[in-house]
């Protein structure tokens, strides 16, 4: 066990699964070379942010495939390869590019198992970057996991830390259904203890990263880190928060969410995807429908405004939810001092 970054944890998961199972192949733009071109200079990048670095050298051109800039063709090729016996991990560089290959995802891979009467399997992972905070502007910063959560037949994973990323990616590669794996580009240098061994974290099993009796915070992806920080600061002022990281938005661990809501009766949802028809709306509906009698205060959502992600860094930092906004939302629903359990 040693400290590893989010980037290293993902790289290690890919490497170990590729060693374990020869059917695992990587395909995508720049996953091998990046700046190759006519100079044939492979491995100079290893992915646009270096996540797949070293894999081309170890596994060679038959298992690490650089593609032209054509999402429709290589995501489609990955779907076909998965249906016919490989276990591809395709990289859709930025999730914002999904528009170029949505049919392959929404109408093809997501539907194979269902439309072939359960006889087809599509063991495919699409790794993709999401999230604001990188000054990458409106076309490279969206948090589109609700879009995929909306489509039956896909599994959607949003890992919140390096430990989570490795275990969830190994699970994703071993899963027999198409999995969309969201990597927050701001988190690649985050570090924590990550086991050297292979391990997997089951889908549909939420993680409680903090436990407290007053307010339930539900946070997704990078927001988990902010929610943890908010919970730690609130604890110092006597407000106890449970922080739920659902890990996967599809499948969703509704049991754990409802269990925690029953305990606190107060809920704040932190989500960096757009507010309309998003995960926070979905979770709110679940809680309103299934746990109405447990609620002691209105459900609060901490989200960006319904606008494109601004390029200007000053505006971008106002756009993404931050710790102070989470803290104010929790305070606005927290019980009066005398009733706190902490």
């Amino acid at each position, binding site marked *: 066990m040693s400290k590893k970054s989010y980037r290293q944890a993902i790289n290690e998961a890919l490497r170990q699964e590729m060693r374990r199972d020869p059917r695992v192949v990587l395909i995508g733009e720049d996953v091998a070379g990046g700046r190759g071109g006519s100079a044939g200079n492979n491995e100079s990048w290893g992915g646009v942010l270096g996540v797949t670095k070293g894999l081309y050298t170890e596994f060679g051109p038959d298992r690490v495939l650089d593609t032209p800039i054509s999402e429709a063709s290589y995501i489609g090729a990955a779907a076909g390869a998965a249906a016919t016996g490989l276990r591809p991990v395709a990289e859709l560089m930025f999730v914002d590019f999904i528009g170029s290959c949505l049919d392959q995802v929404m109408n093809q891979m997501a539907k194979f198992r269902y439309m072939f009467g359960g006889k087809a399997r599509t063991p495919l992972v699409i790794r993709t970057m999401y999230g604001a905070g990188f000054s990458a502007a409106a076309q490279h910063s969206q948090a589109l996991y609700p879009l995929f959560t909306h489509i039956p037949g896909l599994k959607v994973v949003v890992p919140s830390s390096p*430990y989570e990323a490795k*275990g969830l990616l190994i699970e994703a590669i071993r899963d027999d259904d198409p999995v969309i794996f969201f990597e927050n580009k701001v988190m690649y240098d985050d570090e924590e203890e990550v086991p050297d*061994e292979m*391990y*997997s*974290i089951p889908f549909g*099993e939420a993680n*409680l990263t903090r*436990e407290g009796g007053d307010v339930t915070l539900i946070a997704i992806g990078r927001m988990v880190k902010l929610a943890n920080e908010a919970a730690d600061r609130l604890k110092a002022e006597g407000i106890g928060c449970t922080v739920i990281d659902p890990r996967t938005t599809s499948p969703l661990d509704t049991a754990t969410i409802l*269990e925690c809501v029953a305990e606190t009766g107060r809920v704040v949802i932190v989500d960096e995807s757009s507010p309309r028809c998003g995960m926070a709306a979905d979770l709110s509906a679940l809680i309103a429908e299934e746990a109405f009698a447990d609620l002691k205060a209105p459900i609060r959502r901490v989200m960006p405004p319904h606008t494109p992600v601004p390029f200007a860094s000053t505006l971008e930092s106002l756009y993404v939810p931050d710790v102070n906004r989470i803290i104010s939302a929790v305070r606005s629903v927290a019980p009066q001092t005398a009733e706190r359990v902490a």
Partner: protein
Amino acid sequence: MADTITPIVMPKFGLAMTEGKLAFWSVDDGDTLKVGDEIADIETSKITNAYESPVDGVLRRKVAAAGDTLRVGALIGVVAPADVSDADIDSFIETFQSTAVVEDDEGAVATVTEPTQIDIGGQSIRVLDLHGPDGVPVLLIHGFGGDLNGWLFTQPPLAVERRAISFDLPGHGGSDKTVEDGSKEALAKVALGVLDALGVDKAHLVGHSLGGGVAIAAAAAAPERVASLSLIAPAGLGSEINGDFITTMAEATRTRDIEAGLRPLFADPGLVSRDMVQDMQRFKRIDGVTAALRAIAAANFPDGHQADLTRSRLEELSAPVQIIWGEADAVVPVAQSADLPDRIAVHVLAGAGHMPQMEQTAAVNKLLIAFLAAH
């Protein structure tokens, strides 16, 4: 005069501990202390434990206050005879604080012994080998679902008198996750293999729970290599066992299920910390662990009962044996310590559950140290 003044420092519980919080003092300035008296509760992110006085003397000064978080090795108090002057205490503290800072980093790193991997019959086994003075070494064997870290309060005190070795059974901790048939005999072979690999001809065996059963099997297989047996809530003495506990250890994956599953381990269920649950959960997610635990459970605890009983083998052993059991054990009933031959000393500890080495550290260490010294 100064050498009669003893610094009480933040202890190191386990390899990962770098700092600890002084939860509260159990004694006051001026109290007379004996070795082993509980003087303070120390909290780490992993566990809270009573810290015992390493010396006899009078607690002359509390340097740290309840609630303080301090680095391992930092001064928390001073013990000295009553006739040492306050001025000497003051100057001792001043000297300690000014020199300790310099030694802090290097000193801490240099004295830490890390576990190593050794090869036993093609399997990689994690071993923590603490070298003490010459004498018959002691081998510590953990229980089902545990690992060598379970001996963090036991192994260092034993290593004061002798070489103390702990290891992870196959399927556990940092050892390979492949187990043969999971039987006590197969696991005992690995335990004896650890002794072979480390060049130890004869050792005292200390086994907890399943590790107790493994110790009996090892002693039965190679009686000439076992100086004595200390069995803590050992498996194999009767058919009853908490089947739900075994099932949880093998099958549970959700945080709350694991937490509920770990509670029977302690007389005080409050000892099941978030970090303990998380460590267990992370261990169970590693490739091969579930299969290994299932294999061991099937061989030793099928259908909510114990199989492969070792009581008759225990009764036939000629090596000295003592048994230590928590009165409130909710995993393996303490009643199984009854009806053993008179030559086997049985110590039942009030206020302890299935993990007396964690809950009644002082009492267990005292029994172990005395028994090992006598044999």
